[in-house]
Every structure is written in C-alpha cells, then in structure tokens.
C-alpha cells in the first residue's frame, strides 16, 4: 500500500540523502583538485593525485598487503564458514543452540578489544608472526558474514534434493559439491565480496596487528592524515569508493542489494 506521505517528511528524507551523499561528493571533488591542499570545489582539474598514490611506496605496499590479507582471510573464512553454515542448517536439531550464538561473538565483542587481545595473547603470548595474527584477526572479523549469508541461502535450500542424490548412490562429498554448493552459489559470491570489502576497510583490528614494515591501507591513511593534509588521501578514498561500487554491483547481481535491508 502506498499512502500519501506528508510533503515535510519527503523533504526531510531528501535532506538526509543530501547529508549522506554530500561528503562523498566533496571527497571526489577534492581528489581532482589542482591545488596542493585539500579544497572544494576543485580549483583546476587533475588526475595528478591518483598518480601520486602509486609513486608513494607506503601506499603501494599497504594496498598490496590489504588485498593479500583480505583475499587470504576471506578464503579461510569461506572454507571453514561454508561447512559450518551447512551443519547449522542441516543438523540444526542435533547441534546445541549455543553453537550458532558462538558465531555471533565476533560481531558482539568490540573489534578493538579483539584486536588488542589478539596482540596480547597470540602475537606477544604465543609468538605468532604479525602477518599470521593479522590474517587470524581478519578471518574472525569476516567469519560471521560467511556463516550468516550462506545460512540465509541454505535456509531456502530443499535438503530432500540432496537426500535424493545420496539415496541414488551419489557419495556425500560429491553430492555436496555438485548439488548443494551450486544451489548456494549466489550466497557464496555475495559472502565473498562482502567479507572482502569488510576486511579491506577494517581499522580496529589491524590497528594493533601491524608492525614495522607491515601495515594495511586504512592504517596507512590514518597515519598519513596525521602528518599531511594533501589530496592524496582524497584520491585513495575515491579508489576505495570505486571498489565499493564494484562490490555493490556484484551483490546486486547475486543476492540483490535489498538483501542488506533485512
């Protein structure tokens, strides 16, 4: 049903959307500015600041690290998250209720506390190298996405199809890969891409798990902003927004973006 909305309410919503989009537009403008300092509207247009990003080794290095960490931790999370999501749906009755709560914990526990605790116990305590701890932290961070998104697609999967395949003599492992997995393909792709962008954007966990020579892009951005106030950061931000657009396109084609409003 579409009731008529009060015009004041519509005007308010329009203002809110200006508030949401304005700052991002300003960042794009600032990235294109010809000046050596951050300003908006841009004085003259240039793509110089985008070249500058790649000239600065700190940004090049941290970008590569961020992509590597995001890829590895997302793959790890999916590798252990898919069977978990399957088990939580398929054997719901046999498994204790607290098990699904356990996978909510990475969302519930403050990220920054998790980051500090990993530094304290795993990196300093156990003595694992910085990179491994960073990957563990990011895997924990994105695991809930893997479990939740794939559980959501499994919820609409009819397990009797799988049983039919097994009773016709298909080995369980083969059945999983040929029957179950193709049916939740959209969920797996969406989970991958959402987990990936979450890892790329993370600050609070990486904060404690970066050391000399190893840092992630957001941490590098924070460090750079404290010292310089030039348009380089704006252009890095624009690159990250481009990545966001790609992520949204993928989610739209798999689950549909309205999935995120559920």
């Amino acid at each position, binding site marked *: *049903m579409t009731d008529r*909305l009060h015009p004041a*309410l519509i005007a*308010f919503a329009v203002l*809110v*959307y200006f508030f949401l*989009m304005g700052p*991002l537009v*300003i*960042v794009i403008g*600032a990235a294109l500015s010809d000046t050596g300092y*951050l*300003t*908006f509207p841009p004085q003259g247009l240039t793509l110089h600041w985008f070249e500058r990003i790649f000239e600065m080794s700190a940004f090049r290095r941290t970008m590569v690290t961020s992509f590597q960490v995001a890829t590895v931790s997302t793959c790890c999370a999916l590798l252990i998250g898919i*069977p*978990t999501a*399957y*088990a*939580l749906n398929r*054997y719901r009755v*046999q498994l204790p209720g607290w*098990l699904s709560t*356990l*996978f909510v*914990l990475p969302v*519930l*526990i*403050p990220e*920054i*506390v*998790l980051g*500090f*605790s990993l530094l304290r*116990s*795993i990196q300093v*305590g156990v003595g694992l190298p910085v990179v491994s701890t960073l990957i*563990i932290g990011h895997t*924990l961070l994105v*695991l809930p996405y893997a479990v939740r998104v794939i559980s959501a697609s499994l919820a609409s999967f009819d397990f009797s199809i799988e049983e039919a395949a097994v009773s016709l003599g298909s080995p369980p492992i083969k059945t999983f890969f040929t029957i179950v997995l193709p049916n939740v393909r959209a969920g797996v792709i969406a989970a991958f891409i959402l987990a990936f*962008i979450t890892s*790329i*954007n993370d*600050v*609070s966990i990486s*904060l*404690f798990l970066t050391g000399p020579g190893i840092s992630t892009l*957001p941490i590098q*951005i924070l460090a750079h902003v404290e010292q310089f106030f030039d348009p380089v*950061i*704006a252009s890095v*931000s624009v690159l*990250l*927004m481009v990545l966001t657009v790609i*992520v*949204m396109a993928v989610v*739209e084609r798999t689950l549909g*973006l*309205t999935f*995120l*409003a559920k």
Partner: protein
Amino acid sequence: MVHGLKGWMMAAPATALVVLCLVLPVSATIAATFYAGGGPFDLYAAFLSSGFRRTVLWRTLEISLITTVLSLVIGFLTAYVVSRAPPRWRSALIILAVFPLLTGVVVRSFAWLIILGRNGIMNNLLVWIGVDGAPFTMVYTQGSVIVAMVYLFVPLMILTIVGVLENIPDDVIEAAQSLGATPVQTFRQVIFPLAVPGLIVGSVLVFTGSFTSFATPQLLGGDQQMMMGTFLYQRAMVAFDWDGAVTVSAIMVAVTLAVVIGMTRIAKRLNPMTT
C-alpha cells in the same frame, strides 16, 4: 547421534578458531584485570579514581547516547519514507544508503575533516560570507565527533528499520484502516508499536558501534576528545600501559554485553507479535 557427530565435524574448524582465537584471548584480557593489580578490583578502582579516565568514559557514553538518539530519529523518519516510496524509488534509495555503509569508516570520517577542518569548506564558506570570527575551530570538538558519528550510523539505521517496516504484514495495516483508523492513528497504534523491536535493534547496533569506535574519534576528536577506543589504543600502543589497556577493554566488553543483552530482553518483551 551419527548426524550430530557429522555436524560437529563440519563446524569444528570454525568453532576451534572462534574458541581459540577469540573466546580465549578476550577472556584472558578480562581475567588479567583481576590479577594484574594488587587486589582483584584494584585496576578498576584506579580507573575510576582518575578524573581523566572517568571523563573519557563519561564522554564516550554521552557521545554514543547522543549519536544513537539522533541516528534513531533521522533513520526512522527516512526509513519510513523509503518503505512507503514507489518500488523503483525504494530500491534506488536503499542502494544509496548501502553505498556509504560499504565505504570504509576512514573514508567517511576523513570526508568530515575536509568539511570541518580549519581550512575546510565550512570555514571557507563562512569567511567568504563574512561571518565574524571565522574561521572557527570545528574539528577536535565534541560536536564534530557527533556529526561524523551520526553520518556514519544513519545508513545502518535506515537499512535496519526499512527491513523491519517491510516485515510488518500489509493485512495488519489494512485491517486497521478498514476498522476506520486514520493514517495518523494507524501509524501511532499499529506501525510504530510493531517497529519498536527493530528500533531497539538499530539503536543497540549504533550505541555499541559508537561506544567502541576508533577511527572517527581519532580523526575528528584527537587527544582533546579522547574516547574509550582511542584511549585503549593510546594506553596499549603509545604509553605501553597494558594494565590500563586491559581495564579499558574489560569495561568496553562489559558495557557492550550489558547493552546488547538488556536491550534484546526489552525488545522481546515489547514485541506485540509474540505476546
């Protein structure tokens, strides 16, 4: 039984990771607060006896609460419009809310630095208009942190509430209308009460998110507006005061869990659909 075992085996790697690398380290951090000082509660006493630390805790609670209330009001009104918009507009508006949500916290906080900075757009504008006393110091104030936080959380609030509003069955609303309720009455007596549990879920997400945030207070609050997150980092990585850091961590976990558990209980009790 066999099925149970199969299920356990499949969930085992992820379970092991969460237990070994999350439950144990975080528990160790919290446990450390009880034995690191002289007596079991010495670290907490030390935290609360320091005027500066009390201010940080109080400021964090205050900023988080203001952020939550503002995001709730803005998010609810906007979500109501979104959920009532014609289908094509609705999906466009949802996409526009998802975009900032998926854009990182650092980028979104940095945007406000460009706007509110001393040589930022706002000050340039005020100088250009000729406002007395401009440029003003707008960053490193409580207001700048709150604006950036509200900016950060409004999309999350919109999406959460749109989801809830769409789950309200149309027949309930139609029933109210066919019984003669005016649109205002329908809103007050049917839609709003049914949306309350969702409003609570959204508020919990925003409050805990603000309470434990780092990048926004770091960029827009600096040392002047230190919050629990930035204070934890400062204790652990700048001052190397790990006793202080574990105490801040434990307080953050306690507040987060208390808010989540308490509010979930209230949300359940207030849900008219379950009673």
